[in-house]
């Protein structure tokens, strides 16, 4: 195991998770620097939940290790949980307990507790204090979970698809709360989400999982800088096999309604200029891709290599 590293909040070191013969994660390695907002993305079943479970010490990986602040997540679970705030995908609590009772209960579990902050957030979210957990709406449960997670003044916040099932207003409130937390305390965040537009505005680093393997682990700005959609008019001379096309090295090439479309994962102006001048590629144009489009290009049905 690596020695304590002050720059990393968490580290997955060749983590493999298997359920019987099914592999959920295969030798996944990545680190989240302190103060970073890391978005772990992937389709359902890509292995996100298995990795999160390893991180929270709920599951021991078959190979490799997940470490938090340099300590093994499995063997130091109890101690590490005090430094973590977690908003699970499906927030759960004793059905009869109210938000107020839950807050009182949680306050005793952590060395430091920001009771005032919890109260303020519950008021802002308009989560009633005296309604049993089971009778709260899905959005309210998530907001309560976030308020409680932030109440422990965590050094690392783990948000497992926190916007799932939330309406637009609740989602907006959640992101604003996250902005406040980041501005105030610089908390490190590990986030999984299907709301890629929200992630795009918040994450500084992204990891993309596909079928248990990590395809991408880099700063969001870098990822977006290297992806482009190149569209060009169709003509009799197809540029498929041309040297210019090879230099462009597209990830995917498809027929669009007005011509051809290629997704390029290692875009360079020079290669594009050569391609645009090549015979057969008329009206070539390169346009940027949103994170969502990049995700689809990598993980969609006909997705390819990174």
């Amino acid at each position: 195991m690596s020695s304590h590293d002050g720059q990393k909040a968490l580290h997955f070191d060749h983590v493999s998770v298997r359920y019987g013969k099914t592999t959920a994660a295969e030798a996944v390695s990545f680190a989240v620097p302190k103060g970073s907002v890391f978005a772990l993305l992937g389709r359902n079943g890509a292995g996100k939940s298995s990795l999160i479970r390893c991180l929270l010490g709920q599951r021991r990986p078959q190979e490799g290790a997940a470490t938090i602040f340099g300590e093994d997540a499995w063997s130091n679970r109890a101690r590490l949980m005090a430094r973590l705030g977690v908003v699970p995908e499906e927030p759960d609590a004793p059905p009869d307990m109210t938000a107020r009772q839950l807050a009182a209960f949680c306050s005793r579990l952590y060395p430091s507790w920001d009771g005032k902050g919890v109260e303020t957030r519950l008021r802002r979210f308009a989560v009633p204090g005296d309604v049993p957990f089971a009778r709260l709406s899905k959005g309210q449960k998530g907001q309560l979970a976030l308020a409680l997670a932030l109440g422990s003044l965590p050094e690392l916040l783990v948000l497992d698809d926190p916007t799932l099932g939330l309406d637009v207003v609740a989602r907006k409130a959640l992101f604003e709360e996250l902005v406040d937390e980041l501005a105030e305390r610089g908390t490190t965040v590990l986030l999984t989400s299907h709301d890629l537009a929200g992630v795009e505005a918040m994450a500084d680093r992204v990891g993309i999982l596909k079928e248990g393997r990590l395809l991408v682990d880099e700063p969001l700005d870098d990822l977006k800088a290297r992806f482009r959609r190149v569209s060009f008019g169709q003509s009799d001379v197809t540029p498929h096999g041309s040297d210019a096309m090879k230099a462009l090295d597209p990830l995917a090439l498809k027929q669009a309604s007005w011509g051809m479309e290629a997704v390029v994962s290692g875009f360079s102006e020079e290669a594009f200029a050569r391609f645009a001048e090549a015979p057969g590629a008329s009206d070539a144009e390169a346009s940027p891709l949103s994170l969502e489009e990049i995700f689809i290009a990598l993980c969609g049905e006909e997705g390819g290599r990174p």
Partner: protein
Amino acid sequence: MSNRGIWVHPELDNGDLVYYCTDTVMHRAPGWPPVKSRETIGRGPMQGGFAMKRRLTVDPADAVPIWRQIEEGLRRLVASGALARGVPVPSVRELARDLRINPATVAKAYQRLTEAGVLAVRRGEGTFVAADAPALASGERRRTLREGAERYASLALTLGAAKQEALGAVTTAWDGLGEKGGRS
């Protein structure tokens, strides 16, 4: 199109007159009357008669990093005089909250602008447009103007507008922004 942005009063001509607001909150600058409502922002005059125009927007989906969008947007606002020298800009946290982006992204843009002398931090007071903020270099000014014109011309062509019609729309928009917005 993103509905996020800072909005400033188009008639800004001195340090006292600045509003910035977003789709949820409208912040009042010192000495200004409270603003009652903001339902129609960007679509016409606001209640109270403040014709606010959107001036800084970010598009997280763009390939240009968000910090650079903010940096360039603010640089342009300052250089063009739309954001006057000496006026306060939103705090990192306020702007991040309003745009719903990572505060570190805003901080990065502000830091670069401060290093470039466009913004100045006054301890305990906040961040302001520097009193001696540099004007837009003439080359950059020309380039910005040309790029904006090309975008508009391309839109007009797509809509099948005639040249005269398109130019007429520019004149109308120009007048709508107010004489003080630019030189006639």
